[in-house]
Each structure stands twice: as C-alpha cells, then as structure tokens.
C-alpha cells in the first residue's frame, strides 16, 4: 500500500489545495456510505430501509466520481482504500459508529443539508469536471434533503418519544457535524483559485441557517454547540472510531486489492 496523497505528489491535474477539497468530500461520502450499508435490513420499516440503502448507495457513487476526479489515470481503489490513516481527510462525524437508527437519521439530516451547501459552492469550480458533477449530484441531493426533512417533520409530530429520540440523536451528532466545515489544508488558496465559491466558514453559516429554520419548523429546540467535537479530520487527525471502520471498509480490498465486481 502506498500513500497516494502526499500533498501534490503525483496529483496530476489537481493542485494540492484542490485535491484537499475533493478528498475531504470524497472521504466523507465513502465513510458515510459505509455506515448506511451497515444498517441494511435494520430500518424501522421496510420502506425506510430501502430509502436509506438507496441514499447510502448514492453517497458511495459520489465518492467514486470524486476519486475519479482526484486520480484520473490512477488506481481509484488504492486511493479509496489504500491510504495510510493520516492521509484520509474525512471528519469525525462519518468515522464514529452509529449506535441507533435515529443517530443514522440525525446524521442523514445534518450531512445532506451540509452536502447541498458544499456542492453548491462547487457548481462553478475551476476544477475540470467538478462543476458538472456538482450539478448531477445536486439533483440527487434534492431527493435526500426532501426525504430527511419530510421524515424529520413527521417525527416531530409523532409524539413525545419520537421528539425525544430525534432530539437526543441530533444533540449527539451535531458537535461532530460541525467538523464538516473545518477548513481543508490550503482552503484559502482553493477559494482564491476558484476551486470553490466561498470559504468553509461561509458555507457553515448557511448550513446552520438552513438547519435552524428546519428545527423551528419542527418546533424542536436544539442547542447549537459551541465547539467541534473530535476536530482535525481535514488535516489528517483520525478519531477513535477510525480503526474499526477502516478495517471493516477495506476487508475485501485487504484480501485482494485487484478484486472486481
């Protein structure tokens, strides 16, 4: 296994700051997609089980497309599964295990609202192919957010137990979710180069506005956390959930790096 992400080295078409932005998103997508997969068959009812599975598959598809952009001529699998821990750029939200279905739901809600904001900032990216990918992904995201919002608002009307479980899950996931908008390495340069339209801090503010409006609509009071839990993911700091996740996610790749479906 080789470390394929040493900043800039062998990066081909992408500048180092652009690659950091792309990998931050790609690594979030592949890890979250994995968590959805671990919940197949365990959803509260069949229809939601299918919907979650389908959304998880979309996230894996986004990861695949982003890895292809990051490594147009290289080995995508090696990039996805073969890096050393410190070379991944995901945030702790997608590394921590999901102990209950409502936590996966809370993650779905927080993550997809963030995804819309993140991909919107990439619509007119200077990175070749990234803008058109963003347009395609945003169509899928409109379904993801409609699903998450629709389910959230109904659960808010679903009685005290539902409100309490969703509220508690959001309180657990939100401090981790703040890490979604921690700046990537060289983020200022990425904005200056037109890789993304606005800095992560501005994206984070728009994400918060969207969420707070939704929480209001559902009549749920959610205390906004003051600090990111488990920071540093975008700079290569792995949280305590990483090792187990990585071993599970790379099981097939570890057995046979050349395996194909």
């Amino acid at each position: 296994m080789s470390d394929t992400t040493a900043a800039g080295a062998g990066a081909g078409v992408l500048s180092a700051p652009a690659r950091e932005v792309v990998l931050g998103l790609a690594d979030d997508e592949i890890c979250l997609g994995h968590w959805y997969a671990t919940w197949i068959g365990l959803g509260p009812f069949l229809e939601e089980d299918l919907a979650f599975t389908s959304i998880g598959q979309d996230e894996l598809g986004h990861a695949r497309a982003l890895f292809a952009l990051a490594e147009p001529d290289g080995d995508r699998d090696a990039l996805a599964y073969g890096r050393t821990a410190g070379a991944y750029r995901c945030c702790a939200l997608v590394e921590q295990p999901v102990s209950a279905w409502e936590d996966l739901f809370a993650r779905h809600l927080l993550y997809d609202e963030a995804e819309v904001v993140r991909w919107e900032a990439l619509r007119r990216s200077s990175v070749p192919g990234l803008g058109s990918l963003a347009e395609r992904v945003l169509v899928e995201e409109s379904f993801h957010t409609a699903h998450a919002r629709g389910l959230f608002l109904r659960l808010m009307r679903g009685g005290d137990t539902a409100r309490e479980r969703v509220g508690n899950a959001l309180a657990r996931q939100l401090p981790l979710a703040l890490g979604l908008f921690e700046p990537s390495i060289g983020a200022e340069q990425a904005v200056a180069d037109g890789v993304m339209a606005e800095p992560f801090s501005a994206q984070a503010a728009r994400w918060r506005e969207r969420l707070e409006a939704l929480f209001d609509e559902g009549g749920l009071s959610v205390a906004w956390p003051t600090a990111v839990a488990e920071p540093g993911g975008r700079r290569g700091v792995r949280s305590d959930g990483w090792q187990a996740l990585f071993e599970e996610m790379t099981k097939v790749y570890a057995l046979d790096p050349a395996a194909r479906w």
Partner: protein
Amino acid sequence: MRTYEVFLRKSGRDPFSHAGSLDAPDDELAVLLAREAYVRRGEGDEMWVVDRADIRHADEALLGPNADKPHRHNDGSEVAEHRKAQRA
C-alpha cells in the same frame, strides 16, 4: 401508517401497471418512498401512488356471474370452420 398502491409506466409504451404496495405516514412521503421502493433502476418514467382507501373495491358477487359465460369467448373459429367446409 397508510397503505398505498404504486403504478408505473414507461412513457409512450405500455399502460400503467401495478408495481406493488407500500406503507407510508402520508401522501407526500408515500411518493418519496415509492420512488425508492419501485423505481430505483428507472423502472418507470411516470408513477401513480394511490391511497388504498381511495380505491373502490367491487363486490365479488357483482363479478362472479360473469365467470360462467362461455358464449362471450367466441373467437369465430367455429364459424370459420363451417364456412371452410361449405367451400370445399
């Protein structure tokens, strides 16, 4: 939860046909969930989602008598054979 029936068709081809049913809390979520349950692979371009409670269910006694009317299955083959025999 309500139960919904889902119908799909490909544009410009066959008529709508029944794809299956699903449970959902209300109409809006039923449409979203039907998409994931029955159209993940583009099985249809158009979809109807109908609350089962809105379907008028005919009494079986209304339909039963029509199951035994062989004269309505006339495909003309006996007439054709008769005419063929006369021509010979």
